[in-house]
């Protein structure tokens, strides 16, 4: 990188850029498109659930002559909804987009440690997402064994599963490059004076997330390689002896173990839960501190809780597997670790709650989303406790209760935090402000309909309605009393989709608006808002890379002349 401002072509500036901000935007836009796409898949499925076996409006023509969603296709859409939302949507947005754009700014560096690897990381992610979608066009449709791809079903599934596995290899490679980059950037490139205990919480969360991605994804890659061997070469790592399908013994030598996949898969997928939630904690913390105009209550306990959370997340995975018959002593171990891991989560949420106490809160759009996040994540977290205990989990396993639980964590949890982050940092990225009215409409409608979608799932789940049912439980007597909720959830989901129009309209209108010229519109303390050229930023980020003298959340310091004291201010 050089300081002279030579003219760059569109291609090098916006497409094959190595600037962390452009790559962050590339990640952001791509992942938002995938989030919308993944949500649309679910809106199609919800029609079938609300009105079983009736032709689907608008998209029905794509599904065949009758316009009814076939059950095989329902399985495909379900598997791809999960895959797309997690691996193509939320993680790239939370980690790829926010991490790339704001982490180097928050620690005061001119770019990531490895800009070319950074660009490679995005383009491999992009290829991976294309491969995932190619799955829809192969014989038999996209992967249809659930996003968890449990064998032996996944071993004998249609070709889409192979495509899924190749897609995952791309995504794992991309996340490996991204996480190494973030880790090296934080360890090596912190500005003068930016010591570990002066790091903003957002940077801390990205740092811990990067460790989780670095160490948890490879075992899934190992599992993926084994499953590819099973599917393509005919090994039987996951195939038990004498498996009978449709009355015929399969031509596998057998001797493998389906349980092995579950262990390897959940060894990734439990840390993955914290990959989804930690960046959300970080974003919400920044916004809460900024809009209560007071320091975060318990910065250090928050940091230690997050480090502990990251560590513990590696030894709780088998709480997804109580029903596999893995033995009571192993069950006891994982129940204990699961109860222990709830402690740091509670610490983090409590610090956020207590940070609100006594603040003169500014209720702007980012703050509303952040405030929405706190109780919604609370519901998601608390409903997880019964699932962590085998006695309750045996009843609730694979019911809609589980779906409700993890969607509360990820949808009104993480996705609200991501919206909050977009509204909060929009002035930094563009130099413009978003429209507050549209933002608030977006929040309130989203908040109502999110709960309309996910709250009834607890009711259905407690009644024993299983997940992954094509007809929404119509043929089961025990589901009869709660069947009407399917329509409630579906209508809420479609209205939730409509509510996102406020967001899209807001983005378009705000981008066309005038620049405000404000460098620090929120009166924030972290250094991405200070000592910079007026946004949007060019190459190099800072005119002079600032030195850091104080902690990240010095709001309303007694005796100061204004209600915020930036980290780069001496004294």
């Amino acid at each position: 990188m050089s300081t002279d401002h030579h003219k760059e072509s569109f291609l090098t500036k916006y497409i094959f850029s190595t600037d962390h901000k452009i790559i962050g935007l590339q990640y952001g836009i791509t992942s938002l498109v995938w989030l919308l796409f993944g949500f649309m898949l679910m809106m199609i499925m919800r029609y079938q659930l609300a009105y079983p076996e009736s032709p689907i409006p608008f998209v029905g023509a794509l599904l065949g002559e009758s316009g009814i969603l076939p059950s095989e296709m329902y399985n495909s859409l379900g598997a791809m909804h999960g895959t797309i939302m997690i691996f193509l949507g939320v993680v790239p947005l939370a980690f790829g987009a926010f991490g790339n754009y704001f982490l180097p700014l928050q620690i005061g560096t001119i770019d990531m440690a490895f800009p070319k690897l950074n660009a490679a990381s995005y383009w491999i992610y992009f290829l991976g997402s294309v491969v995932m979608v190619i799955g829809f066009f192969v014989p038999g449709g996209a992967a249809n064994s659930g996003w968890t791809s449990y064998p032996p079903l996944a071993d004998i599934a249609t070709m889409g599963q192979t495509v899924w596995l190749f897609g995952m290899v791309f995504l794992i490679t991309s996340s490996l490059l991204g996480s190494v980059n973030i880790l090296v950037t934080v360890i090596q490139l912190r500005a003068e004076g930016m010591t570990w205990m002066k790091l903003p919480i957002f940077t801390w969360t990205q740092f811990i997330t990067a460790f989780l991605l670095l160490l948890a994804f490879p075992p899934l890659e190992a599992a993926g390689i084994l499953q590819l061997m099973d599917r393509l070469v005919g090994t039987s790592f996951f195939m038990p002896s004498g498996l009978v399908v449709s009355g015929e013994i399969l031509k596998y030598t057998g001797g493998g173990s389906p349980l092995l996949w579950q262990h390897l898969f959940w060894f990734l997928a439990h840390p993955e839960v914290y990959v989804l939630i930690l960046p959300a904690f970080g974003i919400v913390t920044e916004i809460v501190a900024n809009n209560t105009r007071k320091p975060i209550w318990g910065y250090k306990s928050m940091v230690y809780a997050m480090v502990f959370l990251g560590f513990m997340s590696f030894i709780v995975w088998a709480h997804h597997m109580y029903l596999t018959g893995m033995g009571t002593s192993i069950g006891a171990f994982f129940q204990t670790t699961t109860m222990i891991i709830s402690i740091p989560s509670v610490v983090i949420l409590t610090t956020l709650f207590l940070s609100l106490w006594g603040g003169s809160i500014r209720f702007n759009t980012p703050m509303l989303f952040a405030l929405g996040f706190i109780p919604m994540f609370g519901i998601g977290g608390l409903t997880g406790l019964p699932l962590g205990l085998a006695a309750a989990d045996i009843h609730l396993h694979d019911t809609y209760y589980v779906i409700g639980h993890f969607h509360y964590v990820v949808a009104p949890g993480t996705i609200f935090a991501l919206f909050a982050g977009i509204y909060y940092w929009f002035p930094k990225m563009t130099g413009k402000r978003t429209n507050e009215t549209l933002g608030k409409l977006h929040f309130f409608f989203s908040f109502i309909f999110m709960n309309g979608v996910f709250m009834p799932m607890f009711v259905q789940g407690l009644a024993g309605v299983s997940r992954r049912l094509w007809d929404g439980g119509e043929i089961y007597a025990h589901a009869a009393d709660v069947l009407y909720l399917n329509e409630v959830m579906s209508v809420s989901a479609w209205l939730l989709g409509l509510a996102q129009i406020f967001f899209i309209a807001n983005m378009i209108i705000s981008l066309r608006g005038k620049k405000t010229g404000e460098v620090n519109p929120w009166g924030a303390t972290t250094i991405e808002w200070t000592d910079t050229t007026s946004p949007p930023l060019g190459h190099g980020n800072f005119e002079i890379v600032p030195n850091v003298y104080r902690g990240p959340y010095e709001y309303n310091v007694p005796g100061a002349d204004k209600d915020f004291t930036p980290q780069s201010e001496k004294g």
Partner: protein
Amino acid sequence: MDIPYTVKDRPDTGLYNGKLGVWLFLASEVMLFGGLFSAYIFLRTGVDTWPRGADILDVPLATLNTLFLITSSVTMVMSWASLKLKDLAKFKLYAGLTLLLACAFLVVKYFEYTHKFHVGLFPSTNTFLGIYFTMTGLHVLHIIGGIIVIFYFWMPGSKMWESDPERFTNRIEIVGLYWHFVDLVWIFLFPVLYLL
């Protein structure tokens, strides 16, 4: 403005960026092979009978391969040390030897594989052969990756020695770290698959 610590060490961490990066990458690789070794243990403890590696596999050839790889690790270090002593010719010699030994490893592996196929032993024959081919196959991919990178620095990439010798030396150190890791994986694979 340039990105700091690409060549020089950061004082408080004592590392330059690339070195830290490759250590983290290797941590990830440990988890990848760790996952496969765990799978091996899981599969083996789950069945009643498990063949003895030595009965199926060729221990003398694997021993020869172990020697090749250990020697290649030594020559890899020597090539880096030569650069530290500012001797490009010696570097070329040792890096060339490393490449030669790595290729020798692949040739031996090729004969091992084709012999297995010839006598009708395939990955699908049983789980032991499945995990043998998967793990050694993945290891071979790592060897090939290493060969490509070392070859690049041996021939076209060595031009950097003229323009930025310190950075070039660092690059060889990083490749070396990777190469030692690949060597180490084999040192675990050899007893686990062939001897136990």
